[in-house]
C-alpha cells in the first residue's frame, strides 16, 4: 500500500496525559487521532485520584517528574483560569505528628528548594493551630506550601480533549488497541472497527502503558498498580479545614492527606496497597478502617460527619523511581509511561516536553492558523453555578430546575452535557461532567429521573445505561457453596 497514512500522530490513551498531549498537538498543522480503550475520556487513574495540584516541592530533585511538575505548574494555573476548570489555591500544610517527622521537615525544605520551589516555610505549632483550629492534638509543627492547591480531576482531561476535538483531533472511544504492525513508514494500529494508520505513535496508555510498550518491541518497565482508597465526606464537613493537610511522605507514597475538594467536600486518603489487576479498584474494610483511624487523629470531628462516597484509583507505579518518557525517533514512537501519582499536575509539562521530543525527532510542528479555546461549564463550588445565576435562568429556565438536589445540578446542565462536544453517553460520564449523583443521597432522589433524562436525550435505551443488556441474568443455580 502506498497511500499516505491517515494520521500524523496517534495517541493511545485519553486520560489526563494523553488528552493534554492531544491538546498540545492540536495547536499545530497535524492530523491527530486520540484513541481510548474506555467509553469516555479519563476513565482510568484520571478519574480516581486525590485531585491535588502539586507544586512538585517533594519530588525527587533532578528527576523528570520534578522537572515536568515545575514546568507544568504555571501552565495549568493559566489554562484552568482561561478554560474554567475548577481550581482553588487553598495552600497546603505538611504536618509533623512526632519528633521524627518534625526533624525531617528541614530536609523537605532543602528538597523543595532543590526542586525550584522556595516559597515553602516552617510553621510553628501555635500558628498551625490558629490556622487549623480543628486539627487533632499532638501536632508539633508543619511546613507551609502556599501554592499547593486543589483542582477538578474530571474537568481537566475533558477540557484538554474537547479543545483537541474543537481543533481537529479525531477522538476514537471504546477502541482498545489489540496489536500493531509496521507498513511503509506507518504504524497500523488494530482497533475493533479496523486498522488505523499513523506515522507517529505516542503511548499514553496509563495502567496499560507497559503492555502497549511491549507491542512496540520494548520491555523496560512493568506497571504494578498501587491502589489508593479514598473517603469523601459530606459538604457539611467542609468547614473543618482551610488548607490541604499533608503528611510527611514516605518512599512508598505521599501519605494520607485531608483535603477540601472543588465540589465542597472533604477528601481523606489515600491508602497505598499493591494489587494484581488493572480493575482492582475495590474498597476494603481494612483500608477504610485504616483511613478513618488516621482521619480521626488528624481531624477528630471528621469521622462524625456522613460519608458521601468511597472510591479507589490505581497509580501506575513501576520499578523505576521516575517517569518513563522515552522517544524512539527511528521507530517514530514515544512512550509516556509510569507517571506514578502526579499525572494531573504535570500533564501540561509532559505535553510540552513530548512536543519538543517529537520536533527534535523530525516531526514538523507548524502552528495552525487559528486555534479555538474551550470554556467549560462552571461546576466548582467557588464559581457561580447556574442554580444561583439569575441571568442564566432568565436565558434558559432549565437552569433553575434543580434535578440533583444534593449537588444542585440543573436540568439545563444535564441536557447540555448530553449534547456537548464530547457528550455524556453514560451515567458515570454525566457524573463527571456535571456532579449529578455525586452527592450525599447517592441517587436516592435523582437517579431515576436522571436515568430517564439521559436515555431520552441521547437515544440510548435505559437498559444499556444501567448495564442490564449484557450477558444472562444470574440464576439460582449459581449460588456458591457456603464456606465451611
Amino acid at each position, binding site marked *: 500500500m502506498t497511500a499516505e497514512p491517515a494520521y500524523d500522530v496517534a495517541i493511545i490513551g485519553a486520560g489526563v496525559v494523553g488528552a493534554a498531549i492531544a491538546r498540545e498537538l492540536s495547536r499545530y498543522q497535524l492530523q491527530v487521532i486520540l484513541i481510548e480503550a474506555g467509553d469516555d475520556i479519563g476513565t482510568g487513574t484520571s478519574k480516581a485520584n486525590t485531585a491535588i495540584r502539586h507544586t512538585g516541592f517533594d519530588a525527587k530533585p533532578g528527576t523528570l517528574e520534578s522537572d515536568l511538575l515545575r514546568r507544568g505548574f504555571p501552565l495549568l494555573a493559566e489554562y484552568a483560569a482561561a478554560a474554567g476548570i475548577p481550581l482553588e489555591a487553598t495552600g497546603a500544610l505538611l504536618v509533623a505528628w512526632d519528633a521524627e517527622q518534625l526533624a525531617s521537615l528541614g530536609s523537605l525544605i532543602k528538597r523543595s528548594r532543590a526542586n525550584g520551589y522556595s516559597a515553602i516555610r516552617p510553621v510553628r505549632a501555635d500558628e498551625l493551630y490558629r490556622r487549623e483550629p480543628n486539627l487533632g492534638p499532638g501536632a508539633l509543627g508543619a511546613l507551609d506550601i502556599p501554592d499547593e492547591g486543589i483542582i477538578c480531576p474530571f474537568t481537566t482531561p475533558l477540557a484538554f480533549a474537547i479543545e483537541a476535538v474543537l481543533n481537529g483531533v479525531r477522538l476514537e472511544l471504546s477502541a482498545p488497541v489489540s496489536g500493531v504492525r509496521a507498513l511503509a513508514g506507518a504504524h497500523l494500529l488494530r482497533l475493533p472497527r479496523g486498522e488505523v494508520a499513523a506515522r507517529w505513535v505516542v503511548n499514553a496508555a496509563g495502567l496499560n502503558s507497559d503492555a502497549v510498550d511491549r507491542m512496540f518491541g520494548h520491555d523496560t518497565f512493568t506497571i504494578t498498580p498501587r491502589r489508593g482508597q479514598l473517603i469523601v465526606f459530606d459538604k457539611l464537613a467542609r468547614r473543618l479545614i482551610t488548607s490541604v493537610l499533608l503528611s510527611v511522605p514516605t518512599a512508598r507514597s505521599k501519605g494520607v492527606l485531608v483535603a477540601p475538594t472543588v465540589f465542597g467536600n472533604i477528601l481523606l486518603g489515600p491508602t497505598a496497597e499493591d494489587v494484581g489487576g488493572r480493575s482492582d479498584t475495590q474498597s476494603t474494610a481494612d483500608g*477504610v478502617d485504616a483511613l478513618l483511624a488516621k482521619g480521626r487523629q488528624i481531624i477528630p470531628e471528621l469521622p462524625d460527619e456522613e460519608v458521601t462516597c468511597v472510591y479507589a484509583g490505581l497509580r501506575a507505579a513501576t520499578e523505576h523511581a521516575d517517569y518513563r518518557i522515552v522517544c524512539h525517533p527511528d521507530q517514530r514512537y514515544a512512550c509516556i509511561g509510569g507517571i506514578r501519582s502526579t499525572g494531573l499536575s504535570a500533564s501540561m509539562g509532559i505535553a510540552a516536553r513530548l512536543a519538543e521530543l517529537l520536533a527534535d525527532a523530525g516531526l514538523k510542528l507548524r502552528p495552525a492558523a487559528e486555534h479555538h479555546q474551550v470554556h467549560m461549564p462552571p461546576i466548582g463550588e467557588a464559581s457561580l453555578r447556574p442554580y444561583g445565576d439569575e441571568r442564566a435562568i432568565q436565558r434558559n429556565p432549565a437552569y433553575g430546575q434543580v434535578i440533583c438536589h444534593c449537588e*444542585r445540578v440543573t436540568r439545563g446542565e444535564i441536557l447540555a452535557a448530553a449534547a456537548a462536544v464530547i457528550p455524556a453517553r453514560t451515567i458515570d460520564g454525566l457524573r463527571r461532567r456535571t456532579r449529578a449523583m455525586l452527592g450525599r443521597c447517592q441517587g436516592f*432522589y435523582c*437517579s431515576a429521573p436522571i436515568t430517564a433524562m439521559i436515555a431520552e436525550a441521547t437515544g440510548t435505551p435505559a437498559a444499556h445505561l444501567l*448495564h442490564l443488556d449484557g450477558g444472562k441474568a444470574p440464576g439460582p443455580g449459581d449460588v456458591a457453596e457456603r464456606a465451611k
Partner: protein
Amino acid sequence: METEHAEVVIVGAGPAGLAAAIELRRSRVGRVVVFDREGTAGGIPRHTRHTGYGMRDMHRVMTGPAYARRYVELAQAAGAEIRTGTTVTGWASPTAVCTTSAAGLTEWHAHAVLLATGCRERPRAARLVPGDRPAGILTTGALQQFAELHRLPIGHRAIVVGAEHVSYSAVHTLTAHGLSVAAVVTEHPRPQSYALLQAITVGRHRVPVFTDTEVAEITGLRRVERVTLLNRRTGQSWAINCDTVVFTGDWIPDNELARIRGIQIDRGTRGPCADQLARTTQQGVFAAGNLTHAAETADVAALSGRHAARAISRYLRASTWPDRWIPVRCGKPLRWIYPPHLAAGDDVPPRGRLITRTHDFCGRGQFEVVQDGRLLHREPKHRLIPNRSITIRARWLGSIGPGGGPIEVHWANRM
C-alpha cells in the same frame, strides 16, 4: 432577585408540610407558601404504591399516591400556595429563605419558617460496604421511583438489605416488577416487621431471610454480579449471584438547611433539636415530620405537621420563644428520643407521646423517666423491636422541674 413576603413558609410538601399548611390556613393564618424541590408535591407517598396510608390522620386507608394527591388537594382548597420545582438554597436572615426555580431567584421573608424536609435512606457508600462500585445498587426510595414514577428497567435478581417494614415493601415492589429476590439480609437476630407482611412477601415468594448477617462485599465490574454475605454469629461467609442490591431503612434526616443555619442538631436523631411544640433553637424556625424523627409513618408525620401548625399559630400571635430547654437523654439500648429537649410547661408533643428507637430486641420491661433522681413516669412494655416505632406517654411533662436537670429515659428489662 425578587423579594416576596408570607406569614409562614414551609420547606417540603410531603405529608408533614401539607398537613401543617392546611391547619395554618384553617386557623386563618395569612399567606402560607409551601416549597417542594420535586416536580410534584406529596412527598415520598407519591411513589409508594401499597395501601395503608391515612389511618391516624384521615381515618381512612388508601394507597400512597392517592394519599399524596389528597393532601395536595386539601392544601390547595385551604388556600395554601404550593410551589413545586422550587429549591430552598439557603437563608437570607433568621426567618427568610432563598429559593431557586425556573422562574429565577427569590428571597422569601416570613414570620415563621417550618422545616419539613423529611428523611432519606443511607446509601451503600455511607454504610461503608466494601467492594466494587457497579450499577445496580439502590435504596428503596430510588427503587420506587424507578418502578413507579419512571417505569425504568430494574434488574433480574435482587438482594434486599434490611428486614423492617420498608424492606418488605421493597420485596413487594421487586417481585411485582418481575425480579426474583434471592435473599433478605438483616444484621439483627430476627426480622423486625409484622408476620403478615412477611408472609405475603418473602413467604409467598419463598425468599430466604438471613439473620445476624451483613453484606461483606459487593462485586461487579459494570453491573452488580454478586454479593458476599457474612453471618456474624457463626463466621460463615458465602456468595449469592445477583444484579441488584437494595439497601433499605437506616434513615437519616435531610437536615442540610438546619445545619447551614447553625440550628442545634440532636446527636441521636441527627435532626434539628425540636421541642414538644416543634420549636428549634432559632427563634421563628420550627421543624416537624420525619426531619425530626426518621422515620415514622406518613400519618404520624402529618400529625406532627398539624401539631406544629398549632404551635406556629400561637407563636404568630404571642411571639414568645423559650430561652432554655431541658435536654432529654436516653441510655442503652435506646438509640434516640424525640423530642430531644423540652420547654417547661404543660404542652405535650404530637399525639401526647415521645418517640424512641431501640438498638436491640428486648423482652418484657419498662421505661422509667427520671429527673434529678425523681421518678416522673413508669411505662411497661411487652417488648422492644429494632427499627420499629416505640412511643412513651407524655402526660408527666407538667411535673418537670423547670429549673431542674436533664430528663433521663431508661429502659429496665424485667427478668
